[in-house]
């Protein structure tokens, strides 16, 4: 069938080429022949294939929409760097507080206790600094809450995106750098600190070592 329609269109075009004077009727006639030929071509398409293409087009449209909702640029340029800065600030403030507390403890340990009054004054002064240093806990709590909020924000968007595209987890690393990192982690048995109650206790460790 396509060969026949192709021949009809070619015949009409060749007819026009051989004419010196082409009228509007000729052009309309060619258009009609073309439309007829296309109609027969479209009719020849399996309606199932058409339906498949339509579904693919809708899927692409939905995916584009979900990528937009993911707001990946916003996450990358704003939320993730901000969370990183908050965590860095937590590390800095806890380190500063720990250093202050240790300095006080060291000063108390080294203080001359033979002069009772002076010793008492030193202890009192250092204790006040320790109390002040402990105020970091309130600020770090707030900073960590912001990081948790960011993680929840990312989680909800990624979950929505994954559900929309029917994503399945790959068991392979995302890239070569990640692969290298995971390999090293496995070789060096780097699990990091365990959550409360999840790791082995000191008693369990002693039993393992002595068993």
């Amino acid at each position, binding site marked *: 069938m396509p060969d026949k329609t192709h021949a009809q269109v070619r015949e009409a075009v060749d007819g026009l080429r051989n004419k010196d004077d082409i009228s509007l009727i000729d052009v309309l006639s060619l258009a009609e022949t073309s439309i007829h030929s296309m109609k027969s071509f479209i009719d020849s398409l399996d309606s199932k294939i058409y339906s498949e293409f339509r579904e693919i087009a809708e899927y692409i449209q939905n995916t584009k929409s979900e990528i937009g909702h993911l707001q990946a640029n916003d996450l990358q340029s704003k939320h993730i760097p901000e969370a990183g800065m908050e965590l860095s600030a937590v590390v800095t403030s806890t380190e500063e507080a720990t*250093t202050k507390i240790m300095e006080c*403890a*060291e000063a108390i340990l080294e203080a001359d206790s033979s002069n009772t009054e002076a010793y008492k004054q030193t202890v009192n002064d250092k204790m006040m600094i320790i109390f002040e240093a402990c105020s970091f806990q309130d600020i770090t709590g707030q900073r960590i809450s912001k990081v948790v909020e960011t993680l929840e924000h990312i989680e909800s968007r990624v979950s929505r995106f994954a559900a929309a595209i029917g994503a399945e987890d790959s068991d392979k690393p995302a890239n070569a750098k990640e692969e290298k990192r995971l390999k090293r982690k496995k070789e060096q048995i780097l699990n990091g600190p365990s959550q409360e109650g999840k790791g*082995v206790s*000191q008693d369990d*460790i002693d039993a*393992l070592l002595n068993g």
Partner: protein
Amino acid sequence: MAVDLSIPVLVVDDYKTMIRIIRNLLKQLGFSDVDDAADGTEALGKMKQKKYGLVISDWNMEPMTGYELLKEVRTDDGLSRTPFIMVTAESKTENVIAAKKAGVNNYIVKPFNAATLKSKIDAVFGE
């Protein structure tokens, strides 16, 4: 046998705060000759320069972990007998088993206290 408090001790940790904590605890226990290193590579270099009577090392450090340091120490003829205590937040059974297999003398899980540090040092020196 009492622990010889004059032995040189090497503390290996990538966190200065933790080094300071362990240094202070060791000082309170009576140890006077304490050096430190920020990772396994630096520690190994120091151990080849000076004979240490005890190494107290963290596990998770870069570029050389405490686990790698322990294995390097145990395969080096000049260092293999050095008492080695791992002080780490790595608290999975597989970590303890791997450390034991590599020849660790004792294993302390963070956070820890002075009494635990003292008891493990005592245990290493057979008290």
